[in-house]
């Protein structure tokens, strides 16, 4: 029995150092999403231009879903990147903006001011789709490959390298 108490030492030290050691291997700012590797939630939403956008219509193409709001400062910062992405990859990639907890008037005013990329912006009544995606707060962007599986997520505003890396994960590149 006396000797057994020495077992405390390895039992304490080994798991703790192992757990802490694994901490070095990841970027803590990479917020995980339960959706990664799972199919994209399906939806059917009204867009700002009054059309209906159905997730089924997007099948077979890589999709980038961007949650945004006019009241969100970082959304302004990343907006030019979205416009640029639409210009460059619009033929291969479906970009979908989803307006997050905002009025359609404010959203329209935002697009008038900062530019409309020409991709659909959907109105998410009651934040149903945001809940399905598990959005924490705008801006948040999800990357879905052509088979409809969510491959990556950007938490917070996109920057050019992140956009490039994550688009490559769903098979979109120059």
């Amino acid at each position, binding site marked *: 029995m006396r000797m057994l108490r020495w077992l405390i*030492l390895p039992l304490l030290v080994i798991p703790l150092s192992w757990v802490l050691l694994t901490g070095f291997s990841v970027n803590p700012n990479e917020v995980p999403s339960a959706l990664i590797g799972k199919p994209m939630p399906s939806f059917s939403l009204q867009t700002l231009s009054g059309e209906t956008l159905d997730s089924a219509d997007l099948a077979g193409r890589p999709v980038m879903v961007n949650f945004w709001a006019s009241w969100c400062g970082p959304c302004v910062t990343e907006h030019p990147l979205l416009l640029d992405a639409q210009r460059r990859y619009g033929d291969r990639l479906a970009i979908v903006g989803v307006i997050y907890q905002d009025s359609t008037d404010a959203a329209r005013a935002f697009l008038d001011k900062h530019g409309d990329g020409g991709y659909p912006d959907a109105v998410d009544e009651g934040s149903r789709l945001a809940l399905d995606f598990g959005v924490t707060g705008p801006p948040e962007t999800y990357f879905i490959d052509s088979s409809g599986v969510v491959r990556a997520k950007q938490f917070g505003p996109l920057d050019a390298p992140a956009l490039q890396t994550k688009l490559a994960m769903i098979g979109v590149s120059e």
Partner: protein
Amino acid sequence: MLPTLGHVAIVIGLGACAYAAIAFVMGGRRRDPAVLSSARRAMYAAFGLAAVASAAMMISLLTHDFSVEYIARNNATTTPPFYSIISLWAALEGSILFWTLLALGWSGLVLHRYRARHAALMPWVGMTLALVGIFLFSVMVWPGNPFTRITPIPIEGNGPNALLQNHPFMGLHPPLLYIGYTGLAVPFAFGIAALITRRTDEAWLGIVRRWTIIPWIFLSCGIVAGAWWSYEVLGWGGYWAWDPVENAALLPWLTATAFIHSSMVAERRGTLKVWSMGLVIATFVLTVLGTFLTRSGVVQSVHSFTQSAIGPWFLAAIVLALTGSVALLLWRLPDLGDRGAPPRAVSRESAFLFNNVLFLGLTFVVLFGTLMPLIFQATGGQRISVGTPYYNGLNVPIFAALLFLMGVGPALPWGRASWSSVRERFAIPVLLAVLAVVTAWALGMRSLAPLLTIGLAVFVGSVMGDEIIRGSRARSRGRGEAPPTAVWRLATRNRRRYGGYVAHFGVLIMAVAVAISSTMAQSTTATLAPGESATLAGYTLTNDRLVVEPLPDDARVTETRAEMTFSGPQSGTLATALRDYPNSSTAIATPAVRTALGEDLYVTLLSSDPKTGSVIVRIFVNPMVVWIWIGGFILALGAAFAIWPDGRRVPAAAPAAVPAKVPARVPAEGS
């Protein structure tokens, strides 16, 4: 020139600590006062060298010497002098330098104070502190050199982290916290020394108790100041988010608090000794772990800096400190046998024991929650993190139980309590507590947590009040003193007990304030065109005008400021702003907080349209928040009162001042 001087000071500092560690061991074994004295001087020199390096860094920051990488990254020519100076602790390398300065300051203080006493213990205390110094200096010599140069020398620096240059509290909160953190190395050093020399008697506990409470006071103030800072700066209307780094400061605070309580039992009754020693060790290891979590970038938090090479060094330090001290503890376990009998179910000892179990429970909940993301990742799962519901769900009941014990414990006698005395003591407090809850209910309070907290607070408060009244009445009757004099004399003759009451009173205030402010805050978001008003909880806010202009003391920063008039329980004008810093992708909020004793009006600007002058603001009315800071201050004050030197020497055999409560044996004084 200066950076070179700073770097040289660090290298010599490492040498001084290394010499001190060896000399302490040699001098201790040979009992050679000359060698020991040279070891001590080497530690003073190490402190001086850390001071030189810190001064070199501060002056280089003030003069914007961008040839130093740290300064190029964390300073700009436009940074105001105040923020330049405090940039010493604004980022990783500088904060380790500051840390070293404080740790060696504590070491010097302790080694100097006990230079002629505790001859058997002090060499080992010195050795442990020197080892801590070696570690800190070597981090700066190898992976985290604060004076690393860059070429070509940039013309302009990056500027300090926007969040950290937004409020003068940055000059207060980190130093307080660091002073507390680094000071906890002192009790650890005494613990190690006691284990090595097998002097684990009650005298050891007295010293360690005092040297735990002093840094504990700073740590408490640092934690409260941190909560205050986050309330004043972050703009979300709250003050505590169970952020990993907040937790990192809380963890050693919890174990240190547990130790402060358990050591009283160990000292009085000779029990709970292994336990107390374990808490001293745990407290130190948790400070290193906290530093690791804060500084290595392995967890996500508002505080965490970028991933850096110092992580593995800290990990090694944790493993070494934990392995070394636990092995030593296990080895010396037979010496730490309890002399006293196991505590009875209803007695002050058992109350202390429960107190400790609960504090340890809190520690585990917080530790597990903080490490959860890492644990899940290590076991191959998704990286998940736990949020406020986890912490509140588990911690609130534990806190409630602790509050209850806070009332019961001090009123129970040592040894064994009889049921009739228990009934007699607690009948009126229980009655008052029930009355308070009923009154609060009648006034419209419906949520469980604040009702429970108010009931417990009134219970504890009236038990303490009863104790003080009984004691002072006995004294004023016996000696014919006026009641206020009697209370003061009673308190100054029993500093530990009455200081403890004051500290507990501070906790009660904080508990009620936290319970009420976290459940009864009101908030709304309003879009206001110029001249438009919003109302919340009796306040009316009017959007007067929107101003966009550069900051007067730093032209690179653009401030978008909403100027508003408010009326209601308080009235006046306020300005809440968003500041765009050139080195930050998101705008930094500058909430307007109008504090009154009853409630705070708290307004954050969310967004604005400069063309129309309309603004979107979030308005909070937070009741009682200021009492959290007041309670924290009282807590620190009570602890300081408890350990304040008496100024009178108690002869070893003198009878205690109040024979009614204090056992005949006078506790060994710590210093």
